[in-house]
């Protein structure tokens, strides 16, 4: 069984835990065979929401805002830039019914 562990933090606490510590945790999980994938994300200001309605792609700034929508899954993708990421996101089938939040992955700062 695979489990997705989602990390939630208030904006001002985004940097409260040192990245080094998260990296060490991930390394430990990996060694124990527990980790499939882990990434830190850029803040919510960098989010873009992609929806497809009647075959037309709509792009808006910011995260999804529909309170009835719930996190239903995720795709971690490799894309050259945001335009390519949007292209890929628009092909994810639930984009037709709900919305896909595209959020860039953040490099951990290990300095």
């Amino acid at each position: 069984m695979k489990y997705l562990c989602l990390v939630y933090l208030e904006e001002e606490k985004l940097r409260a835990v040192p990245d080094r510590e998260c990296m060490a945790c991930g390394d430990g999980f990996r060694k124990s065979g527990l980790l499939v994938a882990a990434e830190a994300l850029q803040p919510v200001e960098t989010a873009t929401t992609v929806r497809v309605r009647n075959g037309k792609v709509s792009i808006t700034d910011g995260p999804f805002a529909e309170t009835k929508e719930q996190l239903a899954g995720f795709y971690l993708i490799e894309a050259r830039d945001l335009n390519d990421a949007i292209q890929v996101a628009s092909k994810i089938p639930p984009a037709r019914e709900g919305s896909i939040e595209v959020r860039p992955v953040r490099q951990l700062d290990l300095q």
Partner: protein
Amino acid sequence: MPVTDPVHEAVNAVYLSDSRRVLATLIRLLGDFDVAEEALHDAFRAALEQWPRDGVPTNPRAWLVSTGRFKAIDSLRRRSRFDALDEAGDQAEIAVVDTAAWADEESVEDDRLRLIFTCCHPALAPDAQVALTLREVCGLTTEEIAQAFLTPAPTLAQRIVRAKAKIRDARIPYEVPTRAALPERLDAVLRVIYLVFNEGYAASSGTLVTRHDLSAEAIRLGRLLVDLLPEPEARGLLALMLLHESRRAARTSASGDVILLDDQDRSLWNRDQIAEGTRLVEGALASRGFGPYTIQAAIAAVHADASTAAATDWAEIVGLYDVLLRADASPVIELNRAVAVAMRDGPAAGLALIDAILQRGDLLDYRLAHAARAELCRRLGRTVDARASYERALALARQEPERRLLERRLAELL
């Protein structure tokens, strides 16, 4: 600084004519808006120092790009931010070797388009698109934009900072969209330009002078876009703006009151703008792929063509609204069509259409729907209905000149 000496004047002239081009290219070469802006300032500072001594270079723009680029790389190294910005550094290194990449005219013009499309990227918030476009493409200062949009300067500055951070962190690419993506992306650019124009044209509040400048800025942007990318809708939008702008002198009285199209002194209309706008509409209509902006411009051109209000070809206008409804259906366009139908077939026909829209539940809070209904009721002698609709419109109107117009109309009903 005193601008009396010819070299300073030359630097100022190059700043006015070329600083946005230089910035657009520097953003491509350096890969970061903030780094590029700093490089731009450093380049002009260097020009002020060196041109008086060495003379104005034969190609000032190329000189500024190359100087700005070197200064940026230099300061990236000096501040040892090379690690944090190694990507910008890498790109800058490549640029040092590849001199041809920035020298030719075509890639420089492409840079301006890249800048426009990046500032108007749909992944940025609409108000951020507007602010960023005015700041980066038009070169307005943050204070000027804040003043024009009646927004506190810190709020506007924050909007721009966030937009730039998103461009960098979400990696919005600095490129002209592919053919396939172009129609949609161009729509976003046209929307930004038209929004800037309307903000200036509506003259809802704030000092008239500042707001007029916004319309002029939008027209300048529209021209730039047509030069760089002569798509039918880009030409249609420029035509639409010119045809509206041509009526500016006639649409307000000396006391600042609104004068409606029917009552305007048509001798005050700007004939040059009408001629240019009409030429652009004809060109756009003749090409495939025109859309809502071109059709709206065509409607404005029919008005512009009428020497008096009574001479207006309303049948032609109704026909154009039919085309517009097919291209871009909306209750507001239906309302405008209803007003044209009233002019063609009489007030009763128009009123029936407006009532149908309102009964459907559309435009109930749209002041112009009630104002138009009031006007038609008045013409039909239905004074009680006219009064109720004028009052509804007045309750919804927020712009002072418009309120005065509605109050005058109400008073005339007595």
